[in-house]
């Protein structure tokens, strides 16, 4: 690749040809403010705060729209630049309200950060601010099903306009009126209706576009823990960060507060969809299974007995007896969701092989759902059809997955067998949310109620029709509650890190399977999910790196001050390189000695 070398602030910088001066500055750790530039969308040059002085050019240039050339001499600290920049900031702040205390962006706002760094100390504006819909949070107006819009805060960088036009493919947002009266608007105030609308909050450099989900929920400094994980709600496997609210510690334990995308150029870019962003409330919701449950007595009369919460050590022997009873009949079957991780499916495979011998793979069905998501044809962020993260992983393990990611799972064979009475006992594993991940499963519940199934074991995370009908309910964990790996639709193996602990007595799913296997006398020598990954890496071709994948732990509060707007976290990877690692770099690999916690060294007092 061709490269060009230029000088920025006296420092030689070599970048690939075609990059702009701003990109070169960011890559070399030179701090230049910007609002309208975003690496994921096209260049606009409308905010004017990235001005720099370039030798032999008569006027100051916007660095975001000036291409690098060999021998260019750029200054970002020249007196002219500093004054012009402060002037632009003064203009930006003429109408921007000072309602940072009630603004959800306050504390992670690029306008705050850059104004403090580069802006003037005070405003000389004597006239009242321009007001669109009211003062403070009263100005928040509805902006579609997921968003709120506050026009007073908008600085007209048009990132949202370009995002909708280029990434979403449906240019729903535009700027109406001109000059002083310009404002962000949608056609007839309909708001934004898009499957990726949540990204607009990340893209917005101020608090003008906010999600209803995060509205008033937290202040950024109350979210000290951030875990880099992945989303497992579809086969794409977007890289995400799970934010935990946990301050002060005496008031409440840590809980999930939001999901934001994490940059991965090969998978999701800078974006994620609204399903992954907003569909996490069930994880800490009322319907979670917190304790194992079973019916009062054994035998056929058990169906009449109510499902009672119990303890693992009481459930375990009863479950073993019932499974042995069912296994001797030879009509035992597993139904696993493709939401199960590689570890779980690997243990399940070994368990099935030990229990059922040669018929093992025929006795395990993999289920998932597929829904077509309505998106514009020109969208650059396509949300896949398959609603499960690990269909390819199940295929790699040798399970029958039919057409794979091209359509829903075919469970009709299993249904026929259950209804014909050839399958008498069913063990269902479904670690997905309230709607489940197996499609319509009412036939399983009906088969248990009618007696066609004599035993139904459900390992799940939330109460459902299936858990109501089950003989045994084993509480598992959601994807943010376990360290696990998943193989996405590109065949990429990715790690999802544990952000919070499973609730109550719920266990990680691989652990439940290992416990069940051990009670039945199957040798499963695993003490941690890392053990399973090591065995998996040794046993499977193409997974040799699986045991080396890095898992994150929540990053402690001592580093929160360095993290800003989550969508721009990539920026912090380049800027502030002289400071200790920011969020997302405290990578702890299993099996390695624990790293020292990053700390900010004290500066000597002059």
């Amino acid at each position, binding site marked *: 690749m061709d490269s060009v070398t230029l000088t920025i602030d006296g420092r030689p910088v070599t970048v690939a040809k075609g990059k702009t001066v701003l990109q070169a500055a960011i890559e070399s750790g030179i701090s230049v403010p910007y609002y309208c530039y975003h690496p994921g969308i096209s260049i606009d040059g409308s905010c004017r705060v990235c001005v720099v002085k370039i030798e032999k050019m008569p006027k100051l240039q916007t660095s975001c729209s000036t291409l690098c050339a060999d021998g260019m001499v750029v200054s970002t600290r020249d007196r002219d630049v500093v004054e012009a920049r402060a002037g632009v900031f003064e203009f930006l702040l003429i109408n921007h309200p000072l309602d940072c*205390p*009630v603004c959800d962006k*306050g504390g992670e706002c690029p306008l705050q950060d850059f104004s403090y760094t580069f802006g003037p100390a005070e405003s000389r504006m004597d006239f009242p601010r321009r007001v669109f819909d009211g003062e*403070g*949070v*009263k100005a*928040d107006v509805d902006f579609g099903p997921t968003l709120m819009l506050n026009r007073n805060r908008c600085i007209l960088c048009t990132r949202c306009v370009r995002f909708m036009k280029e990434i979403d493919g449906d240019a729903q947002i535009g700027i109406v009126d001109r000059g002083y009266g310009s404002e962000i608007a949608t056609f007839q105030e309909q708001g934004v209706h898009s499957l990726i609308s949540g990204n607009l909050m990340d893209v917005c450099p101020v608090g003008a576009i906010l999600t209803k989900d995060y*509205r*008033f*929920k937290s*202040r950024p*400094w*109350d979210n000290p823990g951030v875990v880099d994980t992945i989303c497992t709600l579809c086969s794409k496997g977007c890289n995400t960060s799970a934010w935990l609210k946990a*301050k*002060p*510690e*005496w*008031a*409440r334990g840590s809980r999930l507060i939001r999901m934001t995308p994490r940059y991965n150029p090969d998978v999701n870019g800078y974006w994620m969809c609204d399903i992954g962003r907003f569909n996490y409330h069930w994880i800490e919701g009322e319907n979670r299974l917190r304790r194992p449950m079973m019916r009062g007595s054994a035998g056929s009369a058990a169906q009449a007995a109510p499902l009672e919460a119990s303890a693992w050590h009481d459930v375990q022997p009863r479950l073993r007896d019932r499974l042995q009873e069912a296994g001797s009949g030879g009509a035992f079957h597993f139904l696993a969701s493709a939401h199960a991780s590689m570890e779980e499916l690997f243990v399940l495979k070994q368990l099935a092989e030990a229990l059922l011998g040669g018929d093992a793979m025929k006795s395990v069905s993999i289920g998932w759902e597929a829904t077509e998501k309505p998106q514009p044809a020109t969208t650059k962020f396509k949300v896949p059809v398959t609603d499960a993260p690990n269909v390819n992983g199940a295929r790699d393990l040798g399970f029958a997955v039919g057409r794979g990611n091209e359509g829903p799972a075919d469970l009709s064979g299993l249904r026929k067998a259950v209804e014909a009475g050839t399958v008498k006992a069913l063990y269902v594993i479904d670690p997905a949310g309230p709607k489940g991940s197996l499609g319509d499963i009412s036939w399983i519940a009906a088969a248990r109620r009618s007696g066609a199934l004599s035993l139904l074991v459900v390992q799940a995370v939330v109460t459902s029709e299936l858990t109501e009908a089950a003989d045994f309910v084993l509480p598992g964990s959601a994807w943010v509650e376990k360290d696990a790996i998943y193989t996405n639709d590109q065949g990429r193996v990715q790690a999802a890190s544990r952000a919070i602990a499973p609730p109550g007595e719920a266990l990680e799913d691989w652990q439940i399977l290992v416990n069940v296997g051990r009670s039945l006398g199957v040798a499963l020598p695993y003490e941690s999910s890392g053990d399973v990954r090591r065995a998996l890496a040794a046993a499977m071709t193409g997974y040799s790196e699986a045991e080396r994948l890095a898992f994150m732990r929540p990053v402690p509060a001592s580093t929160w001050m360095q993290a800003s707007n989550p969508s721009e976290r990539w920026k912090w990877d380049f800027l502030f390189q002289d400071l200790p690692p920011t969020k997302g770099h405290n990578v702890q690999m299993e099996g390695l000695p624990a790293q020292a916690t990053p700390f900010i060294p004290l500066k000597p007092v002059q």
Partner: protein
Amino acid sequence: MIKPILVGLATTFRHMFKKKVAVNYPDEKIPMFPKFRGKQVLMRDENGLEKCVACGLCAVACPADAIYLEAAENDGTVMAGPRYASLYQIHKTRCIFCGYCEEACPVSAIFMGKDYETAVYSKDDFIWDKSDLLVPGAANAKPSQQM
């Protein structure tokens, strides 16, 4: 020998006719001096609405991590602005009465009060919540007036 006794008794008798300093606490109380920092008070504005906008700056400023609050959107049933604190707790065993919360508040909603009687019978009462901190609203005020 006799002289010191007479001096001492004279002092005693002299004090019998002076103004009393001790008060009959708790029936009588001494007013606190102006800069005294006691239990916090959450204020209301001139319309009787809660002033607090739940920005959380008091909780950040608090060196003892004694303040916990949760912001919420007003659905019109609360005597407050559109954004208010649905939960506001101060852990009194953590609070060091430094007054930083008062200093941090951008809307002058929290003040250090004059109440120094903080003893309680149960450790559950160590946490002051809004019912302990908020000044009472006017008896005839209605939440619907504010929206």
